[in-house]
């Protein structure tokens, strides 16, 4: 007797929803295959976290949304993240994208910036070629279910040699607990292009549980440079499963800047596959845990290319009863000569009931490489508190300054000013101030 996995999404629903969206047949076919695969796959196994005990069922149902051409009509919760002068913007509200804007200038350069559903119709060749190449359907049950159920999402294509100065932005909002919320972001940066993309994930007014099963794929072709900044700040009703993956061809470059500010349980895996020679990956993550959150954050760099370099830098603050596992995995494959992989994980513990496990892992199959790691878990230094207080600063403010100081080096890297100041406020909120 084989044990039949009961999936939270059914084939009949997938078909029905695809029809409602007027989806291309090839895409629906892929979804159904993914769903079939999901039944035979196991859950992912992040270090020291038992996902089988998590409730991962709140996929909801696809609900179509009305598009709007006016920014004024966007939900208030999304508007506060939109930078004043931004003309390149996508907003997703629950199951679908409601707003898309791309400036004439970028359009003229051949940039594509639209929801992934539309892209699958209008740019079939490109989407078909890259969708599912960085995060594979077959990785585990969660990825397979994502490929079966994703909705809305973003497709960003930057043509060869096009260098964009202004950041492109997206905001994702879930406020209806019965609606599927599983955006897929696909960024393709063609040879020698350069782009910055920034997004926010938010929730408001939920009256039930929501599962965010989200995937980000960045394909950076030869010599392309991508900067990807993302801030997640879901409320505690949302369980966040986020898999982000970049594939780098020769001399390509990715910079991840990630703010993990959710109030709910979270699994986030931010990884780069350094396939080409001379590639470079940089990942900076800040995270704050509070309440009784269960958190598992992984940064990962896998080196295949020669002279490839990776840097990973995580700073996390844990308060109250937050439980966190923080993994850094540097893998250098045989043949990746002159590769250099460095990682640091630092955790600041603000309460004795919180947990912060930092696990630096180096897996090296090549001799001619450099690799290093540093990990620390500590409390606020009482000498530093004393020093600040001796200048008249209250204990609360002294600790606040020290905690901000701990996170500051990463916040300073955020490429949008509005997002930077926003993040500061989110940090304040997460720290209970």
């Amino acid at each position: 007797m084989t044990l039949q996995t009961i999936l939270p999404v059914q084939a009949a629903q997938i078909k029905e929803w695809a029809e409602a969206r007027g989806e291309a047949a090839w895409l629906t076919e892929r979804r159904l295959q993914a769903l079939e695969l999901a039944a035979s796959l196991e859950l992912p196994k992040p270090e020291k976290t038992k996902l089988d005990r998590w409730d991962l069922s709140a996929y909801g149902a696809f609900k179509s949304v009305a598009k709007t051409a006016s920014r004024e009509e966007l939900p208030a919760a999304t508007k506060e993240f939109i930078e004043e002068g931004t003309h390149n913007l996508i907003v997703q509200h629950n199951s679908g994208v409601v707003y898309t804007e791309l400036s004439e200038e970028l359009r003229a350069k051949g940039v594509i910036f639209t929801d992934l559903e539309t892209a699958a119709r209008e740019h079939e060749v490109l989407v078909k070629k890259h969708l599912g190449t960085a995060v594979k359907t077959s990785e585990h049950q969660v990825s397979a279910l994502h490929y079966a159920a994703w909705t809305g999402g973003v497709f960003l294509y930057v043509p060869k040699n096009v260098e964009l100065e202004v950041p492109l932005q997206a905001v994702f909002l879930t406020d209806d607990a019965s609606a599927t919320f599983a955006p897929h972001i696909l960024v393709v940066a063609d040879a020698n292009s350069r782009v910055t993309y920034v997004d926010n994930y938010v929730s408001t007014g939920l009256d039930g549980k929501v599962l965010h099963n989200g995937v980000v794929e960045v394909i950076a072709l030869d010599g392309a440079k991508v900067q990807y900044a993302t801030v997640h700040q879901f409320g505690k009703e949302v369980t966040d499963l986020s898999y982000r993956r970049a594939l780098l061809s020769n001399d390509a470059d990715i910079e991840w800047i990630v703010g993990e500010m959710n109030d709910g349980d979270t699994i986030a895996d931010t990884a780069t596959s350094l396939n080409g020679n001379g590639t470079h990956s940089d990942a900076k993550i800040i995270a704050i845990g509070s309440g009784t959150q269960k958190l598992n954050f992984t940064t990962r760099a896998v080196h295949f290319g020669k002279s490839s370099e990776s840097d990973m830098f995580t700073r996390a603050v844990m308060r109250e009863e937050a439980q966190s596992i923080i993994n850094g995995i540097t893998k250098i494959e045989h043949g990746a000569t002159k590769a250099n992989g460095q990682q640091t994980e630092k955790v600041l513990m603000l309460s004795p009931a919180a947990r912060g496990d930092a696990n630096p892992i180096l897996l090296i199959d090549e001799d001619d490489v450099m690799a290093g790691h540093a990990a620390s878990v500590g409390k606020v230094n009482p000498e530093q508190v004393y020093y600040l207080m001796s200048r008249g600063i209250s204990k609360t403010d002294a600790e606040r300054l020290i905690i901000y100081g701990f996170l500051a080096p990463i916040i300073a890297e955020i490429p949008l000013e509005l997002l930077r100041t926003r993040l500061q406020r989110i940090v304040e909120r997460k720290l209970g101030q």
Partner: protein
Amino acid sequence: MATKFVIEGLKAEIEGKEILKGINLEMNGGEIHAIMGPNGTGKSTLASALMGHPKYEVTEGSATLNGEDVLEMGVDERALAGLFLAMQYPSEIAGVTNSDFLRSAINARRGEGNEISLIKFIRQMESSMKGLEMNPEFAHRYLNEGFSGGEKKRNEILQMMMLDPKVVILDEIDSGLDIDALRIVANGVNEMKNEDRGFLIITHYQRLLNYITPDFVHVMMQGRIVKSGGPELAARLEQDGYDWIKEELGITDETVGQEQEA
């Protein structure tokens, strides 16, 4: 009100070991007191106990500033009451810029709703830094992080100048300073001298006292002030060292905890 700072019978211990064994000292606004003494005799302990370092436990005595016992106050309250300690080893705090830190300290004094305007603060900071011949970039550097020994000392003086305290304790402010910096720092102190402010200067060397003339010089040994005098005492110590005092008082080992039990 004229500043009056009185330490009476101050005893303090660290990790159960008594270091200060009854310190008495009276200091008025406008006065400069120097504290000298060999290594390990309790000078920094006195400074730390007065400021309220969490590791030191005061077991007896009082330290009143204009009638109020600062030893009853929290560290921040002591600072707000007018105490300032330039530390022998200032902490480094990554991620907090010097200017953010100083602005927080100034605003803590001014209170909510009365915060200093950014422009005014920057002007004040720039002019103080100029006086200390500090590179303007130090405003944006993280607090003491990677500062050289001398740069840290200058930064302590910068804080003193901007926080306008009533009782200033300088713990070896001269150590690690080059000759020019010594003069600059001493000038900073001299400029701050007024009738409302008293200085307690811990130092090993006469050279600082060449620039800042003390009204009183105290010598510490074994956790006590064992001798007090005028500026001539410092000059004598520079010339002859401490042996003559030890002989005079019958002390063989001057450090704390080494005295013979009765």
